[in-house]
């Protein structure tokens, strides 16, 4: 799996829905996953576990509370998001603030130390009034300690933000020079993106001329010239970045604290360096452009189609908004799409009410793949269909993914479907990741107790002599407004230990490619 290209990476994604002041529904809690190109990634869990929220946050239909969603389907050279320039401009600010915060925290630490000495002196004597005074001071001390801790956290947060753009170079003493180089690099990238746009326009023109039967050679020549320009800009941008990297990486570290001198910490900051596009920071218009590649198919096909528009018009809308094909080309494209998803050309003229559930879902699929789609979120897309039709739709999705190199993010509660449809599976519980594994591995060897009981609950197509009268999992899912402390599953877990109630288990890689968040494994 590791040689595959990552398409989407989620880093510590959080999503809270505010209920009232200070009370949040914690729909997603530190979800970190990578989705590879061309894979079918399944998400399972009970209702309310945050699987749909996750799908929507990825597409930025809901803004994320914190964390990052990084998309590698496009490069900066292809599309230059506005946030990048801002981030480069802000680099100095990050470093300055981090230094300030650390300084402040150090001052507070000094004060705290003095206080501590005072307390020690007092406790050596110990009359009544002194004990009272001591308690007062102790309270003050803990306040100071808390403050200093928060400031340190803020400082590392600043560094972390900075490192997203330049990695550990944020620690460099000569940051202005780094910034200058990166600004130059960014200008080149922006240039490349602009020229690239022109290239795509020419490409379209050429394609149209090919359709007309007379390939326009002058356009072709122009295309080549523009292509060269793009490559030139890209190379220059890379050179500038490389220069910054070579000159300053690991050298002349600003000693903000002792930690910044630690190579391990520097490496960690390097790890934050983003080479993909951070979806959360895009403007609405930029995100809209990316949505051509990132689509969604919903559960209820009837609700996602306009009952007053014919099927053809519904699909054609996609081209009207996103492309400037002439009407005749649009219609032909829609016809092709209809055939691709197993409908007839005649369906162009029919209205949604005349179609069966399976056919409506096919229209939904046609709409999702109409443009150059790379990534599709399928939110319970086959759950509302009858079994025989469900199987048809699954088969269609399988074919399309092979033909068009699609990546699926498949949300469902049906474990039978994920087992036979998905390559990798994420099990979620109360907004947290429980287990991630290849689907055959997960079904052979479940590590997390929740996965185990979830699987045991699935009705089997096998007849037992006795109908089961033993339940596998008692109780309901706790409220996400007030999730249990420690491991979210401990209230229903039959292997619950003391530590489960106190500490949230980290996600560890128990076997290669098999991740689990449970205290049973250490």
């Amino acid at each position, binding site marked *: 799996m590791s040689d595959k290209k990552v398409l989407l990476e989620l880093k510590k994604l959080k999503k809270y829905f505010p209920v009232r002041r200070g009370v949040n529904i914690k729909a997603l809690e530190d979800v970190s996953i990578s989705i590879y190109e061309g894979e079918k990634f399944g998400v399972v869990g*009970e*209702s309310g576990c945050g699987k749909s929220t996750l799908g929507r946050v990825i597409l930025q239909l809901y803004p994320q509370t914190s964390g990052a969603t990084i998309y590698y389907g496009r490069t900066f050279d292809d599309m230059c998001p506005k946030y990048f320039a801002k981030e480069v401009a802000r680099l100095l600010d990050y470093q300055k603030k981090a230094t300030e915060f650390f300084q402040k925290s150090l001052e507070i630490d000094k004060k705290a130390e003095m206080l501590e000495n005072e307390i020690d002196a007092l406790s050596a004597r110990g009359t009544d009034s002194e004990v009272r005074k001591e308690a007062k001071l102790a309270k003050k001390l803990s306040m100071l300690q808390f403050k200093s801790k928060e400031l340190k956290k803020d400082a590392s947060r600043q560094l972390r933000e900075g490192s997203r753009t330049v990695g550990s170079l944020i620690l460099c003493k000569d940051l202005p020079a780094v910034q200058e180089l990166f600004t130059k690099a960014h200008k080149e990238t922006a240039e490349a993106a602009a020229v690239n746009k022109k290239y795509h326009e020419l490409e379209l023109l050429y394609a149209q001329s090919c359709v007309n039967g007379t390939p326009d050679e002058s356009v072709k020549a122009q295309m080549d010239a523009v292509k060269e320009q793009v490559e030139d800009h890209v190379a220059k941008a890379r050179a500038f970045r490389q220069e910054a990297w070579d000159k300053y990486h690991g050298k002349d570290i600003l000693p903000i604290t002792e930690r910044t001198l630690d190579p391990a910490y520097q490496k960690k900051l390097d790890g934050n360096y983003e080479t993909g596009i951070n979806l959360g920071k895009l403007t609405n218009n930029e995100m809209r452009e990316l949505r051509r590649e990132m689509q969604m198919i919903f559960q209820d096909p009837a609700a996602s189609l306009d009952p007053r528009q014919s099927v053809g018009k519904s699909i054609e809308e996609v081209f009207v908004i996103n492309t400037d094909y002439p009407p005749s080309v649009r219609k032909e494209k829609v016809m092709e799409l209809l055939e691709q998803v197993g409908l007839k050309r005649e369906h162009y003229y029919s209205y949604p009410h005349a179609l*069966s*559930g*399976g*056919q409506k879902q096919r229209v939904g699929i046609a709409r999702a793949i109409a443009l150059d789609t790379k990534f599709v979120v399928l939110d319970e897309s086959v759950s509302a269909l*009858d*079994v*025989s*039709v*469900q*199987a*048809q739709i*699954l*088969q269609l999705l399988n074919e399309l993914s092979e033909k068009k190199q699609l990546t699926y993010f498949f949300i469902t*509660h*049906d*474990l*039978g*479907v994920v*087992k*036979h*449809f998905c390559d990798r599976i994420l099990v979620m519980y109360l907004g947290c990741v429980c287990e991630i594994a290849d689907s*055959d591995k997960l*079904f052979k060897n479940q590590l997390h107790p929740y996965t185990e*009981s*979830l*699987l*045991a*609950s*699935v*009705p*089997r*197509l*096998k*007849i*037992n002599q006795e*109908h*089961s*009268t*033993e*339940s*596998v*999992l*008692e109780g*309901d*899912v706790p409220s996400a407004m007030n999730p249990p402390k420690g491991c979210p599953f401990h209230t229903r877990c039959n292997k619950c230990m003391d530590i489960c109630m106190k500490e949230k288990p980290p996600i560890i890689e128990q076997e290669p490619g098999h991740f689990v968040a449970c205290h049973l494994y250490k």
Partner: protein
Amino acid sequence: MGNNKVLEVKDLVTTFRIEKKEYEVLRGVSFDLHENETLCMVGESGCGKSVTTLAIMDLLPNNGRIVSGSIKLNGQELTEMSKKERNALRGKQMGMIFQEPMTALNPLLTIGRQMTESLMLHKGMSKKEAKQTAIDYLEKVGIANPEDRLKQYPFQLSGGLRQRIMIAMVMAVQPSLLIADEPTTALDVTIQKQVLVLLNKLKKDVSTGILFITHDLGVVAEIADRVIVLYSGRKVEEGTIEMIFAKPQHPYTIGLMNAVPNVELDDFDIQPIPGTFPNITEDIGGCRFHPRCPYATERCKAEIPQEIEIEPGHFVCCHKVEEERR
């Protein structure tokens, strides 16, 4: 399994009037349900499962009516009764659990009020007795602190709890027939398992016959004693659960089995049944399944297959099966 027949349905034909035309929804369905037995009715949406239950309960919508056939509950003919007589039976001798418990419970009344109402009405209990019975039954369905629950409103409960309360409410009256129309479809798998386990437990205690409607073959395997498979208003196969799962005969039943992604198997190719489910307004001669059937012959298009008993208790309606046996 008791031998007393709780329910006998014979050649039931119901029609729906759509735009001044009558369309057959059930085209002659017959089955029996015994005491202490769970009979599962399986089929895709639109096959007539729900209409059958509505016909039994006399809850058909205004444009639907029973054209012919008979429904006997404990030997009494239901189709000849007046509205008033049937009303008296409903809830007392036959109870029903619906798919969505939230819509079946009144959101404005407490659980206690709703549970005691039917007990006082059908069983003539006093308020106190009814309350005690309600508490007993809530305990039976595994609800903790039943007395507190009685004071709560439906919105305060989770989906699984609501469904348990529905079951308790229906069972408290001790009906001889319990109709469960997709009671677990709206629930999560873990909660579904809890409800299925509960029904299996209850079945041991009481002599009620359960008619269980579902489209999920996995659920059938968990709960059924006998199964009937419906397709487009006709029964295509009937048998004990072992017969249906181990050696399904009708091409539709086989197709259904192959279309369900099975968690047990490692290698599994999803094999859909080609084509789409026919609309009730479509006029299909002969076997209703023939347009989608891989074995369809000229005879299937012309002649309605008769029910044949291929082994005691295993009935199939298919020309192919019949010809192979000759």
